[in-house]
């Protein structure tokens, strides 16, 4: 039985190998060759594509991608706590339905969703016309075709990746801990800071890692709501791969984004781990 165990893993392993590992490997191989008018020059190896990534234009696009992703993750972290604890206080039967509400944005195609956002956010969209009608603003706010639009669309879109683990952690918290802290003299904000937050931090970080990764690689929202003026790395990779048909440079961009995202996630987890541990042993 133990030997046959890997058989159960095999189907998924095959799918991942052919659909994920192989294309990624191909992109990786391509990225070390030159693109020529005749096609990819597989005869020579080069790091010229990676050298191009240091171009200030590409660097600024990477910076923007990182900035947008961090802002979205930060907003999500702050918003997810009240929502998670609100849901936990409801009757157990009601909770899954509310979770479904927060998961629902993820069930809508991201392109459809982004066009939906553009109806709301554009200069003559619902929000701007309403605000102008109420006399709150004179000229339309620039809510899209910039970073603001991308952030507005990504926060609800990727909210569930933080909410779900946080909700699970919050429902697993022993209410006695809260009451113990209360009787010992801790007002509600101290209970949150000294008991609830440290005990839910690992789940928050797990959720933020997924959330951040999704933000870094989001495509539809930046493409539609960011446009060429607020290009992100994934949109750049799309342009280079499918408009310029420069697969070697596109491969380098993809590999670069992967390595950079992993590096940020790894160092973020490292920092959080140290913070939690130092919190544990504080004298």
């Amino acid at each position: 039985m133990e030997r046959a165990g890997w058989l159960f893993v095999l189907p998924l392993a095959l799918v991942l190998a052919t659909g994920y590992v192989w294309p990624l490997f191909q992109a990786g191989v391509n990225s070390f060759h030159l693109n020529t008018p005749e096609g990819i020059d597989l005869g020579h190896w080069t790091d010229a594509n990676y050298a191009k990534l240091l171009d200030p234009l590409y660097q600024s696009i990477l910076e923007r991608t990182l900035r947008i992703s961090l802002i979205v993750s930060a907003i999500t972290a702050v918003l997810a706590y009240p929502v998670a604890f609100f849901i936990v206080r409801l009757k157990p039967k009601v909770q899954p339905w509310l979770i479904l509400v927060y998961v629902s944005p993820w069930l809508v195609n991201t392109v459809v969703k982004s066009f939906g956002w553009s109806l709301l956010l554009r200069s003559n969209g619902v929000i701007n016309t309403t605000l102008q009608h109420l006399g709150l603003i004179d000229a339309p706010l620039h809510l899209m075709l910039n970073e603001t639009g991308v952030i507005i669309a990504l926060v609800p879109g990727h909210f569930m990746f933080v909410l779900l683990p946080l909700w699970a952690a919050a429902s697993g918290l022993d209410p006695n801990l809260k009451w113990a802290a209360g009787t010992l003299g801790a007002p509600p904000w101290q209970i949150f800071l000294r008991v609830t937050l440290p005990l839910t931090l690992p789940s928050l970080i797990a959720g933020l890692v997924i959330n951040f990764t999704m933000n870094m690689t989001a495509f539809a929202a930046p493409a539609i709501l960011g446009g060429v003026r607020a290009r992100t790395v994934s949109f750049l990779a799309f342009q280079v791969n499918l408009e310029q048909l420069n697969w070697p440079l596109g491969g380098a961009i993809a590999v670069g984004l992967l390595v950079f995202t992993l590096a940020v996630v790894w160092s973020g987890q490292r920092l959080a781990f140290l913070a939690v541990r130092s919190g544990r042993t504080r004298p």
Partner: protein
Amino acid sequence: MSLEIEGLEKHFGDVRAVAGVDLAVGHGEFFTLLGPSGCGKTTILRVIAGIYPADRGRVRLGGVDVTEAPIHARNMALVFQNYALFPHLTVFENVAFGLRMRRLAREEIRRRGREALELVRLGTLAERYPDQLSGGQQQRVSLARALVIRPDLLLLDEPLSNLDARLREEMRGEIRELQRRLGVTTVLVTHDIQEAFAMSDRVAVLEAGRILQTGRPAELYLSPASRFVANFVGPTNEVALAAIRTVGDGTLATTSGGLAIKVAARPGTDAGGKAAWLMIRPENLRLFVAEGETDNRYEALVEDVVYLGAATSCRLAIGDLRLMAAVPSTIGARLAPGVRVAVGWSAEDGVIGHDR
């Protein structure tokens, strides 16, 4: 500090968890709320602590009304059944939590934290985490964490239920001794009669959100005010009575089977009319009694004998009346089913109760 509760009521939806409770606990007293699960005892404790708001009634601590005071402003300490130690903090930090909330100086926090850990003999484990401790050690930490803030009131919510039998007995004595030494007013919630009796100055027996009887352990055991209390605090024989008469300075009860039993007069035993019951503890039945040795004496047939070590339990038949007797095993050795014995008990050992 003294604690008074007046007319306390608490509902959860349609369920009346506490249905009008009054009680007064004196300064330094060890008071216990005893009852089966679901009788509302934990709810009362949580209302006292401020975890639940009271629907009606007042809670006063040292004469000051604290009914509306928030949980963190009551200076009470609560010890939980599952200990509720903070898993992310060391033993010392758990104990120091309440001191930090009081913003004491660092030196004082260290000194008092150490003292509290010494008090429960855990000084060497200060840097451990709760998951590295045994159940008994965790309970000691939670006790230290509660006592270190010098609470006006110590609340214990089934603190020993998660411990094994031997440890439970040990901790029972330890808590009682600490409580006496520190003189802290204490309210214990438990369903364990032995625990309640062993630790408490006074005990209140609860059922369905009401206090049935309050008294010293011996009072509850020997003079239960109702059948529920009699049965709850220990095994008892219940004999249905057909009539109760006052004869001289005592009472003569007649069973439905026509047996006459002498019972010592107590306040409230002569209320005729309602169906009445006579309650006798099994250990108060004496076997092989001579004529005139006890107030009541009957010929009985031994029907069943169960050896329990120190004591032997046997079922006796007096006519159609069945009684359980618990006798020392030295006497029990002389018993066997079918043996005829003389059984007797004194008039003081019978308690008459009425159906309400």
